Structure formats: C-alpha cells, structure tokens
C-alpha cells in the first residue's frame, strides 16, 4: 500500500490544488512532504526491518494485458527518495518565481512527480513505459506556459518529438520480448530475455538504448537538451535534470541490463565516451551559466550510463550513488543559476564578477557545490565517479582514461566559471542583493547533503547493496 500511496498522493494533491487554487502552495508542500515521509519510511523499512520487497500487484488487467504492479526495491528506493526530496524544492522555486497561474504550475509539478515516481515504482515494463511517457506531458505545458523564451514552441516541439520518437523504439523492443514472455512483469520479461539469441538481444538492447539515450541524453541524441534546460522555468529544469533523466538511467539498470546480458554493448559504450568528451569540450566554451550546467550535466550522466553498461556490482553501486548525487547537485546548481537570473536578469557570466566581495556566504556555498560537482574527495560526487571509473577501467582502460578527462575538464570550466562570477571586481557586483534566509537554507542543505554522502556513503550504499547483488546475479 505504501507504493500505491507514493504514486497516488501527488496526483490526488494535484486535483486538490485545482479544486482549491488559493491554497495551492500549502497543498503542494503538504503533499510533497507526505510523500517524502513515505519515501523515507520505505527506505527505512527496506534497510532495517529487512522487509525484502514492498509490493503491490493488482493482478493482470485483462483488457491491457499488463499488471498494475508496484514495488520498492533497493534499486528504486534511492531514486524514489531522490524524486520525493527534489519535489518540495521545485515547488518552492516555482512559487518564488512565477506569480502567474501559480496553482496550475504546482498541480503540473505534482502530476509530473507522480508519473516519475510511477516509473521508479513500476514492476511492470509496460507500466514503466506509460509512466515514462506521461511524465512528458506536464513539462510540455510547464515550458509552454511559463517559459520566457520566444522560441519556446520550437524548443518544445523538438524536445517532445525527439523523446517520443526515441521511446517508440523501447515500445518495439518491449513488444518483441513480450512475444516470448508470460507477462509484462519485469521479472517475466527478464527470464524471457534469456531465451533470446545474442543477435535478438542486441537488437532489443539497441531499441532500449536509443530510447534511453535520447532521454539521458547521450551524443548524438543530446541536441534537444541544452536549449530545453535553458528555456524551461527553473523549477521545470530542476525536475528535468534532477529526476526525469534518471528514469532513463534507472530503466537501463533495472530492465535493459538484466534483460539483454548477451547483447553487444560496445558501440553504446563508445557513444557514452564520445558524449562525455564532447560535452566537456563544448562546456568549456559556454558563457551562459545555465548552458554550462546543461553541458556538464550531459558529461555526468554520460558517465553514469557508461558505468551501467560495464555491468557489475561496483558499477551499479557507483551509478546509483552518482544518480542521487547528480540529482542533488543539479538542484544546487540550478538554484544558484536561478538566484543569478532573478538578480541580474541574465546568466551571462562575462557580465558578472566580484560577487564574493559583498556576499562571502553565497560565494562559499557555491564553491562547495562546485567542488562537489568536480568530484573532490569528501563530496558525494567523488564516491560515485570513483566507483564508476573503477568499473570502467577494469573493463577497458582506454575508455576509463578518456572518460577520466571529465573530471579534469570539469574542474577547468567549473572553476573558471566560479572565478569569473565570484572573484575579481566588477561594477555589476553591487547589484547582487544579499541572500534571503530561505536561499541560505536551501543552499546550506544542499552542501550539507553532499558532504554527508561524501564522508559516509554507506548511508545509501548499505541499502543498495542487497538489491544490486540480486540484479548482478542476472548478468
């Protein structure tokens, strides 16, 4: 029942918000906090009470041939937690920035969260697919209604059609495997996958990978991403970057890898490597901070995908930690970006400077986030990247060396961005009004979170461990 509650509570609160638009912020926050508590309860139940799986299954829905089956397992628990943690921040961001039609914005965010949690909870491949797609619709309306970009319709068209087109390949792959499977339940699909020939597995893998590569995004399917991140209102960008793309990496980890153990994945791994190198090089040349984060995000998630593709316990541990860490830091980064944009009206780094002179606190908190993003030891970024690189290296050292550049290049452009914006002197600096206490609070939490995870990663790793072994046994 816990799983069902996690899925329905945001949707129910979305309806409540539409019924009582005056109370939208309170309702949205209340709903998201209830969800957060439930997610934590799920995590605790999983790790300490040793209840192996928290499941819900309606039985087969005859008309559709699918199960409405939900499950919290040790793979999904962390991502459910991530989604539930990010949601209140997104709501806070949306009420902070948008005066117009705030209730609609909150309701759409709640629906989006519901769909994304649905994808993480789904224990049925078709249900996963449906949730994966449904999550697109709220963000479609969010970007169209609240984006200030004049090209937003073209950007949304590209984003939406691209993702939809990609996921149709996943649908084909799912249907193909379904021919040999007893049902769409993920476990049934996985056991059916074993009976496929290596060639069939490769084709199925390709179908899945194209779908996920668009969403993650991996070069050359990434072209929708920077502009969409730039055009979306910050609350939407946070949801996209921190949670939505994790649906793809999660799907890769949960469904595709166990389903196609014999598939040839070399090409996909090279795409990820190219993606990492390419995104880092492009990020070096960005002068807009939001675009810089967008490209650095491509590099980071490319790393996650590469790690997952190498398969193995270390890689899966690393991928899960890095997914959480990346989501968390994306929140911090985009929050900082939002603070800059609300104060300056733009995010052009060359027109900023000297913020540290009168805002030392902000500068310090931002510095901590930057350090976590470039994977300095004792931050959460380090744990994930280390485990991932370790796993990639044991598989193919050349790939590891190329991908390792991500850390160095990342340090270059991130530090340079910090330098340009925070240090030096500039007459613009005086415009940067002091941080409000909420802003201090949010950034403080982000920094505290990343440090905690960096120093004591076992907090999450212990939970993950058991489930990972379960999935690794399929490889």
């Amino acid at each position: 029942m816990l799983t069902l509650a996690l899925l329905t509570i945001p949707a129910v609160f979305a309806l409540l918000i539409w019924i009582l638009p005056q109370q939208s912020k309170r309702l949205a926050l209340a709903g998201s906090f209830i969800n957060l508590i439930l997610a934590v309860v799920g995590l605790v139940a999983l790790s300490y009470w040793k209840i192996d799986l928290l499941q819900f299954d309606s039985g087969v829905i005859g008309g559709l041939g699918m199960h409405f089956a939900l499950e919290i397992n040790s793979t999904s628990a962390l991502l459910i937690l991530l989604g539930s943690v990010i949601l209140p921040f997104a709501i806070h961001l949306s009420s902070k920035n948008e005066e117009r039609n705030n209730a609609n914005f909150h309701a759409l965010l709640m629906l989006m969260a519901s769909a994304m949690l649905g994808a993480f909870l789904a224990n049925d491949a078709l249900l996963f697919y449906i949730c994966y797609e449904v999550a697109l619709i709220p963000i479609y309306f969010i970007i169209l209604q609240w984006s200030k970009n004049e090209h937003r319709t073209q950007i949304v068209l590209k984003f939406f059609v691209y993702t939809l087109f990609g996921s149709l390949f996943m649908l084909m792959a799912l249907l193909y495997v379904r021919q040999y499977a007893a049902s769409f339940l993920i476990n049934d699909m996985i056991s059916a996958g074993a009976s496929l020939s290596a060639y069939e597995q490769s084709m199925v893998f390709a179908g899945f990978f194209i779908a996920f590569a668009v969403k993650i995004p991996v070069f050359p399917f990434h072209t929708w991403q920077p502009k969409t991140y730039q055009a979306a209102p910050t609350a939407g960008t946070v949801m996209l970057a921190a949670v939505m793309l994790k649906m793809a990496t999660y799907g890769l980890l949960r469904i595709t890898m166990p389903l196609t153990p014999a598939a040839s994945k070399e090409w996909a791994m090279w795409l990820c490597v190219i993606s990492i190198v390419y995104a880092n090089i492009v990020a070096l040349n960005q002068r807009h901070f939001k675009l810089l984060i967008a490209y650095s995000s491509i590099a980071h998630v490319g790393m996650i995908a590469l790690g997952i593709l190498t398969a193995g316990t270390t890689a899966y541990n690393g991928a899960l930690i890095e997914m959480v860490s990346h989501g968390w830091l994306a929140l911090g980064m985009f929050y900082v970006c939002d603070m800059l944009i609300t104060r300056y009206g733009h995010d052009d780094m060359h027109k900023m400077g000297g913020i540290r002179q009168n805002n030392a606190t902000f500068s310090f908190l931002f510095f901590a986030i930057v350090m976590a993003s470039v994977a300095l030891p004792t931050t959460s970024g380090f744990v994930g990247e280390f485990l991932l690189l370790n796993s990639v290296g044991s598989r193919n050292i050349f790939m590891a060396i190329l991908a390792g550049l991500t850390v160095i290049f990342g340090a270059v452009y991130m530090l340079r961005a910090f330098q340009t914006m925070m240090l030096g002197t500039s007459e613009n600096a005086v415009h940067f009004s002091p941080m409000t206490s909420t802003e201090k609070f949010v950034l403080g939490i982000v920094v505290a979170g990343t440090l905690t995870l960096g120093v004591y990663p076992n907090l999450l790793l212990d939970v993950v461990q058991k489930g990972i072994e379960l999935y690794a046994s399929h490889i």
Partner: protein
Amino acid sequence: MKELLITSLLGIGVLAFDILRIRKMVLGLILAALAVLVGFIVYDWNNLNLPFEQNMLIYDNFAYIALGVFAVIAFFWFILSSAYFKNHEGKTDLYALVVFSFCGAGLMAAYGNLVMLFLGVEILSIPVYVLAASKKHNVLSNESGFKYFILGSVASAVLLFGIALVYGATASFDLATISNTIMNGAHETTMLNLGVTLILTGFLFKISAAPFHIWTPDVYQGAPTWVTAYMSTLVKAAAVVALFKLFAGPFHYFVRDNGMTFGILAGATLILSNTAALLQTDVKRMLAYSSISHAGFLLAALIGNASILTVLFYLLSYSVASLIAFGVVKETQIAGEHPLTGLYRRNPVLAIAFSVALFSMAGIPPFAGFIAKYYVILQMVEAKYFTLVVIMILTSAMGAFYYLRSALGVFKHIDNAGRIVLPATVKYTYILLTLLLVGLTVAAGFLDRI
C-alpha cells in the same frame, strides 16, 4: 428492431417539427431520442434472438455496441455543433439529413444481408453528399460536395458490382448462407474472389485507405467544418464497422489468403498519409490526412484479427478526439488566416482540449489514443507482422510531429486577439470530452469484461 424504428421515426419527426414550425425544440428532440436509443441498447443487451425479416437485420451484441458507439458520437456531435446551427436558415433540413444518415449507419451495424449493407451505405452517404455542399455560395463547399458525390457514387457502383458477383458465386445475399457456401469450398472460383475484391475496393474508398484516399483532403477541407467532423467520425466509424462485419466474418478467408496484400495496403496508407500530413499547412487538410492514417491503423487491425471491441474502442477514441479537433477549428475559424495561433490566450479551455485531442491522436499515453493503438499493435505482434508493426510505430512518430506542430501553435503569443466566448453547454461538453479521453484509458482495463 426498436433501434431501427426510433432512428427512422426521429428523422421523420425532425421534418415534422420543421413543418409545424417548432424548430427550437428540434435539438432537444434529437438528443432525447439518442438517449432513448442508448437506453434501448442497454435494455436489449444480451437479448440475442431478434432476427428481423429473414435475417435482413440481426441485432446481436455486435450490432448493439456498434450502434451504441455511433449514438454516443452523434450525441456529442449534435451538442457541439448546436451553436453553429442555431442561426442557420436551413437548420432542421440539415438536422434531418444527419439523422437519416445516422439511420444508414444503424443499418451498417446490424445488416445480415448484402442488400441491407448496400442500402445502409447509400442511406449513410447520400445525405452527406448534400451536407458537404450545404454552403451554397461557397465554391470550395460545392467542389467538395460534387467530388464526394461523383467518387462516392463510383465507389457505391463498384461495391454493388461486387455484391452482384458474390451473389453469382454463392447464389445468396444472406451472410450466413454465403459463409456456409464459402466454407464448403466455393472460394476457389474467380467470380467470388473478384466480387470480394470489388467489395473491398468500395470499402477502401469509403474508409479512405490508400490507394483510394485522394478525395479525402479536398472533401474534408471544402465541406463545412461540422460536416467534416461528422464525416471523419460517424461516416468513417460506420464504414469500418461494416467492413469488419464482412471481412472478419464470411470473407475472412480472403484476408487470410491475401495477408501480404492487406499488409501492403495498410503500410502504404500509413506511409502516404503521414508523409503528406507533414507537408500540410492547413489544419483541416492535416486532420484529413490524419484521418487517412487512422484508416491505415484500422486496416492493420483487420489483418491482425483484432476483436470488434478493439476496433470500436479505436473508433470511439479517435472520434472523440476528432470531434474536439474539428470543433475547435470551427470555433476559431471566424478569426481568419491562422485561426489557431494564440488560442490559449483567447480561450484556455479550447486550447487545452485541442492539445489533449491531438495528443490522443498521436498516441501519447495516458490518453485513449495510446491504448487504442497499443491494442492494435499488440494484436499485430501476436500475428507476427513485425514489419508492419515497425511501420506503424515509425509513422506514429511522424504523426506526433505534425500533431504537436499544430497543437503548439495555440501557445504562441499574438497581440490584440479577442476572447472567444462559448455557450456554457458547449464549453462543458468540451471539458467532458477531454476528460473522456483520459477516462476511456481507465475504462480500457475493463474491456474484457464485456
């Protein structure tokens, strides 16, 4: 039987109201009669022993549910179009034509005899020829009606020729007898095969599938928008139901033997229509091509041995979306060249309804269109037509592109646009239909219970 009576009496009643000059109550009469019709269907459900006049018409559950779907579509069509017809001079005449055409659809759902099929097709089509040309002073509307009439008559003639040849081969018009004769080995004859081919050709024209789809964009574009909405929903649904009744029934052997040909027809329909739709700038033409592409999906369902429930679900979900889409186009048409641009600012309800309708047509979950397409695709996978499945999925992606391109226009900003005010009933009908597109998805879970 009651169902046939009530629809034909309704047509006469509408004319009588015209003669008695109580035109204001016509719409109420029609809606009440449709509601009663649905009531009768529910009442007679599972009451299977009602053959009428030597199996001329057979009212079984198949006929009931098809008729029920038609009635629902017609019901919403009448409500939505009411504002447009309110001040129309020939309102009752047009309403009477629509009701008579609805009678034809009723026959096509229940025929047990090829003669009744032909009668049904003609009763359905002839009023629509008139309706298509009902904007008397508009050249495009005249062209549309004329084109539809000429080509439609040719198709009817081909259909009739086919029926005659089938009669020649089997010595019967009765579906059950034909079915028996074919099972005893009559399908070896060229005459039967030729007859079935000609009947199929007639139907391909009626459902606007390739290669007989060329008329559709011109006719859809030229006809008054509400007539187009009627053509793309009820006329199409009736033709598809009649087609299924024949080709999933007595002529099933033909589909089985010529699976490849049907596959090519469906594939060609999908590819041609979706490619053409990509190039359209006029939203009505785009919707016309989209209507053709849905015919392709339905043809595929025929090969995949889809159940009639699957097909009716597809028809209902497509029709609801199509009613909304054409309806919104009509509401905004007064504005001029790019009527849909900036609609969100002028009327958010219409804008959201339009977006959701096009999402549904594009087959994006959680809307009914996705489930409808999913059913068909699932059946195709089980029938091992994987190439066709790939075509269906790839053309769906093309579809998503042009649907969204239109749907996105409503969110563009334009200056000094006046608000569009809708009557309350119409506004709530749009909201209801939009919710129905989500509700049908939920209902789909119970489809196997029927």
